[in-house]
């Protein structure tokens, strides 16, 4: 018998998988450690997936942004509220919370966008649209 692989959870926001922690069970609410999304655990045919309990709501994007900033130690500035409104408008028009400062509306630019998750804030002090900032 081969060694058991640790189970993983698929996040539908950042499209990545993260480790299933000891003690978690179906129906639990967890935070994706990669993008900050709140997820409800469900056992699907392909393994664990996280459902978005408040998909598309203002609450969802606000919580995701706060969690992501907390996880990475980032801060916001005075343009935060205007960017939240831009994200809400993107969701209304294109069906999800894509970066309000980009033309594209594809999963790569779901907030926090892939370049941000890839370290843009560390490199540039801020993300592309100036939502997340490195602590001074």
């Amino acid at each position: 018998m081969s060694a058991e692989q640790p189970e993983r959870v698929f996040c539908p926001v950042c499209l990545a998988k993260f480790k299933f922690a000891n003690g978690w069970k179906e129906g639990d609410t967890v935070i994706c450690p990669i993008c900050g999304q709140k997820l409800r655990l469900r056992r699907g045919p392909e393994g664990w997936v996280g459902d978005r309990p408040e998909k598309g709501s203002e609450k969802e994007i606000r919580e995701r942004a706060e969690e992501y900033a907390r996880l990475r130690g980032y801060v916001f500035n005075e343009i935060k509220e205007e960017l939240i409104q831009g994200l809400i408008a993107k969701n209304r028009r294109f069906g999800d919370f894509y970066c309000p400062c980009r033309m594209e509306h594809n999963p790569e630019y779901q907030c926090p966008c892939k370049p941000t998750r890839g370290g843009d804030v560390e490199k540039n002090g801020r993300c592309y649209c100036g939502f997340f900032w490195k602590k001074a």
Partner: protein
Amino acid sequence: MAKKPKVYALSTCPYCKRTRRFLDAHRVDYECIEVDQLDDAKQDQALEEIKKLTGKQSFPVVVIGDDIIVGHDEDKLRRALKI
């Protein structure tokens, strides 16, 4: 007569809104193109114009005579508008 200033913007971008607010506050008569609101053919054309002007796809883009200002920059706007 000099050509009207032109703004390429995204309807969801707060920096584009700030640029427009600045121009409005200074009573500048300008043309604004909300690129994300255009139909596909017009959008392709606008993006092509932006690429030609700036070499990238970043918003807002303001064209004032020979000046091309990328991003919301009130100092550059003032200089270009001579205000």
